[in-house]
């Protein structure tokens, strides 16, 4: 009996020693994860003078345009990524393993090129004198449009001919930037979940007479939901909070939440209290979205990406 007690005692202390491995990190988290967020909350609820106040939140309704734009553009970007990303993930999963590996590496290659460079790349393409507009001009697209417009115009002398499409500095350009940067983050999790689906389940469904459409709808898609949720999270959260994409492609006229926050700390309207208040609200938005997503999905503990 005593040896059993001894054994379980030493097992316990062994366990405790293993647990102790985590203590340094717990301390680190307290210092560098928890306290900073507490500081943000403190700043959000104080004013410049130093007293407790809710005034930073009173002005929030003035920024509904920014909140709305951020949520809307991020939503559009996420939907586009989903509509494009899911079929692509599916198609890749159906190729042979060697091709798959090459395709996956090709997919990850752009991700390893600096995020700023990927966004900057679109500037040369989208500008009024950029490549896309130049190409359209060379193809005669604008001449065509102008001649049609002139012919249909009631007062031809007043017709203003166009020589470019306004591509950059629009909401569309920002969405394009978001999709370009985050599409691989949608494809990768979906793909990694789809290839884990036991093929015998699909075969069983087919043996039972299910058509391809039904196999997809009732077997493949439900089993891939956790990947879809991962993907949505990894696209939506960075999209809603970016400020680089809107600065480079939005022209300063499409301000997003990230721009608003950056402005208050290192930008042109210094007010860390307001910035902290907006940050808190952004955190709340993200947590709510994650909560909603979790209702659809299963537990966490998923290894990220690769």
């Amino acid at each position, binding site marked *: 009996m005593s040896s059993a007690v001894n054994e379980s005692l030493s097992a316990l202390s062994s366990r405790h020693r293993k647990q102790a491995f985590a203590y340094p990190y717990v301390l680190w988290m307290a210092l560098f994860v928890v306290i900073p967020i507490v500081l943000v909350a403190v700043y959000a609820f104080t004013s410049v003078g130093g007293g407790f106040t809710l005034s930073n939140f009173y002005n929030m309704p003035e920024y509904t345009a920014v909140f709305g734009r951020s949520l809307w553009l991020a939503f559009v970007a996420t939907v586009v990524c989903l509509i494009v990303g899911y079929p692509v993930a599916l198609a890749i999963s159906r190729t042979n393993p060697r091709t798959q590996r090459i395709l996956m590496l090709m997919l990850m290659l752009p991700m390893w090129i600096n995020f700023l460079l990927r966004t900057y790349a679109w500037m040369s393409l989208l*500008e009024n004198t950029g490549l896309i507009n130049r190409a359209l001009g060379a193809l005669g697209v604008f001449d065509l449009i102008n001649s049609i417009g002139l012919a249909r115009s009631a007062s031809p002398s007043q017709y203003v001919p166009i020589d470019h499409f306004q591509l950059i*500095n629009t909401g569309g350009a920002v969405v394009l930037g978001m999709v370009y940067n985050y599409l691989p983050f949608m494809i990768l999790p979906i793909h990694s979940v789809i290839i884990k689906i036991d093929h015998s389940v699909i075969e069983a469904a087919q043996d039972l007479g299910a058509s391809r459409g039904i196999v997809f709808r009732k077997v493949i898609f439900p089993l891939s939901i956790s990947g879809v949720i991962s993907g949505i999270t990894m696209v939506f959260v960075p999209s809603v909070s970016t400020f680089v994409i809107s600065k480079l492609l939005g022209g300063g006229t499409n301000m997003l939440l990230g721009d608003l926050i950056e402005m208050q700390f*290192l930008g*042109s309207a*210094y007010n860390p209290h307001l910035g902290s208040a907006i940050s808190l609200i952004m955190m709340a938005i993200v947590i709510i979205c994650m909560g909603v997503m979790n209702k659809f999905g299963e537990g966490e503990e998923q290894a990220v990406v690769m």
Partner: protein
Amino acid sequence: MKKAITVVVSAALILCLFAGCGGKSEGPKKVLNVYNWGEYIDKDLLEQFEEETGIKVNYKNYESNEQMYSVLKQGGVSYDVVIPSDYMVARMIDEDMLEPLNLDNIPSYSLINDKLKNPVYDPENKYSIPYMWGTVGIIYDPAKVGEVTSWGALFDKANAGQILMFDNSRDAMGIALKYLGHSPNTTDEAELNEAFELLKQQKSILQGYVMDQIFEKLESGEAAIGPYYAGDYLTMLENNPSLKFCIPEEGTNIFVDAMCILKGAQNKENAEAFINFMNSTEVSAKNSEFIGYTSPNVEVRDVLELSEDAKAVMYPSDEVLSKCEAFTNLPQKTLDYYDSIWIKLKS
């Protein structure tokens, strides 16, 4: 094989640590941290300064006075020399952010134009030495927008999609206020609101809010009209000779950017040496030629090698000067109001 990898990796790590430590615990090396506007210096001069004095300059840029102010207020940074505009110098003096200068260490001070000594924003000339001055005007391509004589061209629907605007609150509001016939230093909220409404309307015909990104856009023809500083017009002209510059009939802003030392700067003597260097005749002339702005040093005008047209832009006539107004610092209430307007506008 495994052992080899372990050895290589450990060696790499140790090297990194040494490199990192070496970088942090530098000895008494001569260093100077300068924080200046972008595109606002001839970089060769920094090298020249290092050769002459042995002081290495750590040179960083900001986009506007307001951005510089935010970064300094947020804290954790250690710059020695900053070069804010007149009204910002006044604000920083009010908020006790600057270190008094020892003019004995800056003998080239005597070469400064008397009109720029003891200025309104620094009446005892204790905290700043002028760096460059200039005017704000409209830079445009006449082939696309015709002749421009008034600020109204920036608000004209006919130029929609080709218009750029200042990405900082004082310059943008200053233009709107001047166009509406008010002073850019007004504190009257009704007038400020009027300007704000005008800027809001402009937003729909605007191509974008820019600061130094304007160089690319006007030179390549991406945009056709935008307000900016006279010196930058001269620089853009070199790359796109079809551009023209206009000081609008309603009047404009005249500004002085001044070199100051931040309170608590660690390299005060190096800073004063730098200020003295930048203001010396030969250096200031070279700088002025490169960036196109007007030097406050009286000897520079005779030494400059520029075309007559360029000099006319750089040294405006008295008639033009009479239309110019400088920005002053505003009371805190108005400053807060500016901030809230600006955020609302950008939203």
